């Protein structure tokens, strides 16, 4: 019971943290009326002041405004990528696990090939192939490379769920394969799907940051990764302009940490074997 309480605290902590970050990114710009993250308000790396709370970046843009918009961009890209990865993973995993036979062989073969090819390579190649990268395009590209692990896990769960009695009963009563997968199999995987989405969200945000830091970020907008990209390129770290890189790095860490904490605390709640420690 004490353990459960501790888990609950961790769960609550991560949820509150995430809610704060999300509302900062989505409501912040609206409430403060700052909707132009790319507007120039000062010079190169102005110190934090009353006008620019977190100083300005290398182009004289307000870091605080950029931070809010950057968080929003990163979260949207992560969510698109996560949703896409889960969707592809679910379709491929359930079909492979439920139908079996040659369909399973082919689908899992594809999955295994995609797993072995490092996703960062595909991401780099796709990003240079697309000249204008919108937020949605970035999210879709990232999601395209991160589904295989979900597909594998879903397939494993589906193969075991398929042999359960309630599925047999549904099948005997004449349910179609598609409806069967949706009504008899998917509900049992809901908790897994939610957790996988949390992880995929995290992966998506970090992948976006990696790409952006290599100079392949979304165009005409700002993201946390792009803030770091410019901060590195314009030597804000080496000149000591801490406001250029600490805020985005801090928030990337905060988002990643709270997502992982959320995932692990939910995992421990649902999976008693892990609770012993």
């Amino acid at each position, binding site marked *: 019971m004490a353990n459960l309480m501790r888990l609950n605290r961790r769960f609550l902590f991560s949820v509150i943290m995430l809610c704060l970050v999300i509302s900062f990114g989505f409501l912040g710009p609206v409430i403060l009326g700052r909707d132009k993250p790319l507007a120039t308000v000062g010079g190169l790396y102005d110190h934090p002041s009353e006008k620019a709370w977190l100083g300005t970046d290398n182009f004289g843009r307000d870091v605080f405004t950029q931070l809010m918009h950057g968080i929003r961009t990163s979260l949207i890209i992560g969510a698109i990528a996560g949703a896409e990865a889960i969707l592809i993973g679910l379709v491929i995993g359930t079909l492979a696990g439920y139908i079996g036979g040659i369909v399973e*062989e082919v689908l*899992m*073969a594809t999955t*295994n*090939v995609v797993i*072995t*090819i*490092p996703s*960062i*390579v*595909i991401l*780099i*190649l*796709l990003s*240079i*192939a*697309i*000249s204008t990268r919108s937020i949605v395009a970035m999210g879709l590209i990232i999601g395209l490379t991160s589904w295989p692990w979900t597909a594998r896990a879903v397939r494993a769960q589906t193969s075991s769920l398929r042999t359960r009695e309630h599925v047999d009963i549904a099948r005997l009563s004449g349910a179609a394969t598609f409806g069967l997968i949706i009504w008899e199999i998917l509900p049992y995987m809901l908790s897994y799907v939610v957790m996988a989405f949390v992880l995929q969200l995290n992966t998506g945000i*970090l992948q976006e*940051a*990696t790409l952006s*830091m*290599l*100079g*392949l970020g979304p165009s005409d907008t700002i993201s946390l990764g792009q803030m*770091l990209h410019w901060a*590195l390129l314009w030597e804000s*770290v*080496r*000149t*000591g302009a*801490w406001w250029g*890189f*600490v805020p985005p*790095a*801090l928030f*990337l*860490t905060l988002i*990643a*940490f709270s997502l*992982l*904490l959320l995932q692990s605390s939910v995992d421990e709640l649902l999976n008693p074997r*892990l609770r*012993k*420690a």
Partner: protein
Amino acid sequence: MTRFQSYLLNKILWFMLAFCIALTLNFLLPRLIPGNPVDVIVGEMATGGTLSSETAQKVYAAYISEFGLDQPMWMQFLLYVRNLTRGDLGISFARSPSRVQDLIAQALPWTIALQLPAILVGWTLGNVLGVLVAYKGGWLDRGVFPTFMFISSMPYYCLSIILLYLFAVYWNIFPAAGGYSFALTPTWSWEFVRSVSEHYILPFGSLVLIFIGGQAIGMRAMSIYELDADYVRYSRSLGVADNRIIAYIFRNAMLPQVTGLALAIGSMVSGALITEVVFSYPGIGSLLFGSIRQNDYPVIQGITLLLMVAVLAANFLVDLAYGFIDPRIRARTSGER
């Protein structure tokens, strides 16, 4: 054909397929670019005012034929594959006479020298820490472990940036950029070696810290399962010293961690590209960063190919090793695929 031979054949075919797909993607994706990369390059040179229109045309023609862009797509592909089999990755756009393979050959040793030791040290320390934390519990589990968990859940480049700022700028203990002092040229002198080691510590440290955390988490989970095993209870009831028991657990929990090590070594080059960018370290990551900024497609393609081959090879070796070590996996894998 023995069971193992068919397993081997299966694996080889499998990785051949993955390799072919990787090769095709590597060829095709950069060519999806509307217009072509040469337009971009020459366009930039022209606006930069470094070229007269006549030379621009010459450069353009030279690049087009070098990249083979005047040929039909299938010819280009055959050309690409033929050049690859000769170890020819083409010529860099941005650093024109330099060959791509030479640029990569220059950068690769730095990356390997930075990452291989970091992975090995981080792996060893992380696994030891994981077992200790699982076995001893107490303050180790409550204090040290969450710290490492926090660090390893940080995006690794964020930790790098913070360490760089603290140690190189704020306290000014270590140099802030490069693989060696800009004032020196690479020679085997004492001064140069000292400069290299000074520049080495920060990037190395940031990689090791991240790696320790990740490994420790995995090893702790594995060891916790082992704590329940009969041999642990038996040894405990016999009063075997803790260190011996820990050594037993370590050996038993380690097998999955070995896979992790092999894969980490395989994805070494792609694993921490940004670390090099952060520290301006002269490795593959920095080369890639520079090439992307300059639209230097042959170099980007060469690097991505290298990354894919390294990961595929590591995966293959891991699978092979598992076939030797564990017959159950051999049977299951050949059935699954």
